[in-house]
């Protein structure tokens, strides 16, 4: 088919896609080309296009600072802990909800667990603040008193946040993954359980040798999809919940917050775009690798 007949026959398709194409060009493709500013020393006198090339100077500078190591470590370690918790807790929740005798209660619990998923991170930061504020917060004014402990400056204590953030993240996302795993469990054919009961398998044995093995493809796919994004942090969680408390930066600064702060707060375009490109490139490789694994497990679930 020649281009001309193509256009005559399908011109309306191009019209339909035009708004989307326009959006993608401005929102995605021009910024992709714009990553070249990471190799420039942008100054407003010359303008972005005419600013001088400095090639890898921004990257050299970035990796000389201790920040590069801290933000990479934080991003990876937090995401790995999130991925593990997002696997274990929702699977356990889904199995238990599925076994509950009172189905109405099970539905009620599922609904409440899912609620956190729909709260914005600003709201989450309020909820945490209500508990952790140093002079009014419920933990310091009530719980610590009952336990006979001294009040703590929660927003200054670096030791606590590596435990607190995974808990908050799990609390927020467990509902979403529970829904997905529960759907997969319900999709398991009854016959497996019937056969298992005839063989005299206890409930525990059924969970171990029927439910979990049959859930494995779903678990692997959902986990690999998260691993593909292990280099991208949840900006809201790390920006809103610690309330930008400076003393906490060593344990709350991740690549995304670093990029934001060096750019918006410090105005350092070169350093910020270098960090951004570093994230995009490593992220790209990781998505590729994880997708390659997804394809090997379940072709239909692969992104590409």
């Amino acid at each position: 088919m020649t281009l001309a007949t193509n256009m005559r026959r399908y011109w309306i398709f191009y019209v339909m896609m035009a708004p989307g194409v326009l959006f993608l060009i401005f929102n995605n493709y021009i910024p992709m080309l714009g990553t070249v500013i990471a190799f420039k020393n942008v100054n407003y006198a010359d303008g972005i296009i005419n600013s001088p090339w400095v090639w890898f100077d921004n990257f050299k500078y970035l990796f000389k600072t201790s920040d590069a190591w801290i933000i990479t470590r934080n991003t990876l370690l937090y995401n790995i802990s999130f991925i593990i918790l997002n696997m274990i807790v929702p699977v356990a929740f889904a199995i238990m909800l599925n076994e509950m005798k009172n189905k109405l209660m099970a539905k009620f619990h599922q609904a409440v667990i899912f609620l956190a998923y729909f709260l914005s991170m600003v709201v989450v930061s309020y909820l945490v603040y209500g508990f952790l504020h140093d002079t009014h917060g419920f933990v310091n004014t009530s719980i610590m008193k009952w336990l006979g402990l001294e009040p703590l400056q929660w927003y200054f204590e670096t030791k606590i946040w590596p435990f607190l953030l995974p808990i908050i993240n799990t609390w927020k996302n467990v509902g979403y993954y529970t829904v997905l795993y529960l759907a997969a469990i319900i999709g398991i054919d009854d016959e497996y359980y019937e056969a298992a009961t005839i063989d005299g398998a206890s409930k525990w044995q059924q969970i171990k040798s029927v439910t979990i093995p049959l859930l494995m493809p779903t678990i692997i796919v959902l986990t690999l999809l998260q691993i593909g994004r292990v280099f991208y942090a949840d900006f809201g969680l790390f920006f809103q919940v610690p309330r930008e408390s400076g003393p906490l930066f060593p344990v709350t600064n991740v690549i995304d917050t670093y990029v934001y702060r060096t750019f918006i707060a410090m105005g350092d375009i070169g350093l910020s775009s270098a960090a951004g490109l570093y994230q995009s490139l490593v992220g790209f490789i990781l998505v590729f690798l994880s997708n390659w694994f997804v394809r090997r497990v379940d072709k239909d679930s692969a992104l590409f």
Partner: protein
Amino acid sequence: MQTEMSKSGSNPFNAISPTANTIINIGFMLYTIACLLPILLIVMVSLSNEQDVLTKGYSFIPNQIDFTAYKFLFTDWQQILRSYGVTIFVTIAGTILSLIIMALYAYPISRTDFPHRKFFTFFIFFTMLFNGGLVPWYLVYVNMLNLRDNIWALVLPLLVSAFFVLVIRTFFQSTIPVAILEAAKIDGASEMLIFFRIVTPLSLPVLATVALFSTVNYWNDWFLSLVFITDDKTLSIQYLMYKMLLNIQFLASNSNAASAIAAAGGQVSFPNETVRMAMAIMGIGPIVFAYPFFQKYFVKGLTVGAVKG
């Protein structure tokens, strides 16, 4: 899943023991309460007396119920109303526009006879793999499109999600029989007519799911305000909440009530703590009230496999 919650549990001979059932029940009960307590704490603080909060701290049981915080908020109703206006406009305009744009993009790439289908699928798919990062993206919106402090800066960046476009495309491909499309074409229907009269009505489940996600995304968004909004005119509810949590004086310094008191030389201090929590309730309220109604559609949307690439 709404009708049959469980399969293994549906067989009475294969149910878990009553003890295990009780333990699971109590466990979930405790967890559910733990999920709701933080919200309850905010509600209770917003209904407390400022002086009690300052002396006793945030408490689940206020000494007395006090609506002062809400009274202060409502004397400043212009700001709240304005912020709700911004959020509602952004949510409605954004959801409608994004649904139309995404469905219009998804339809051609769902048609196997469209010769450039592969190219345009890759064109949108690639944006999921690689992105330019914050700085160039920001410069496009601010320097090229001049959208700083413009309400459209809160709408445009969230219009198209590559993931949802691919979800819609898969739905079109798997549920709409090609025979129907061909029959309509033989009857002389144009592609536009086919799209609006046949394809969209048959795809309501997936379109509704995507619209719900998009509504929640727009309603909850504060990031775009953080990046693009520098004046105080275009504050969405979420961003107003964010500013109040960060800076206790934000509403106090902008409030009519406070300035009236100051002008009269009064000594009444602004009830910061309780007003802040009352503000949070204004932001949380709509989601929590609407939640029982939309929750089951999300569960349905996720479980029919509609939201899966």
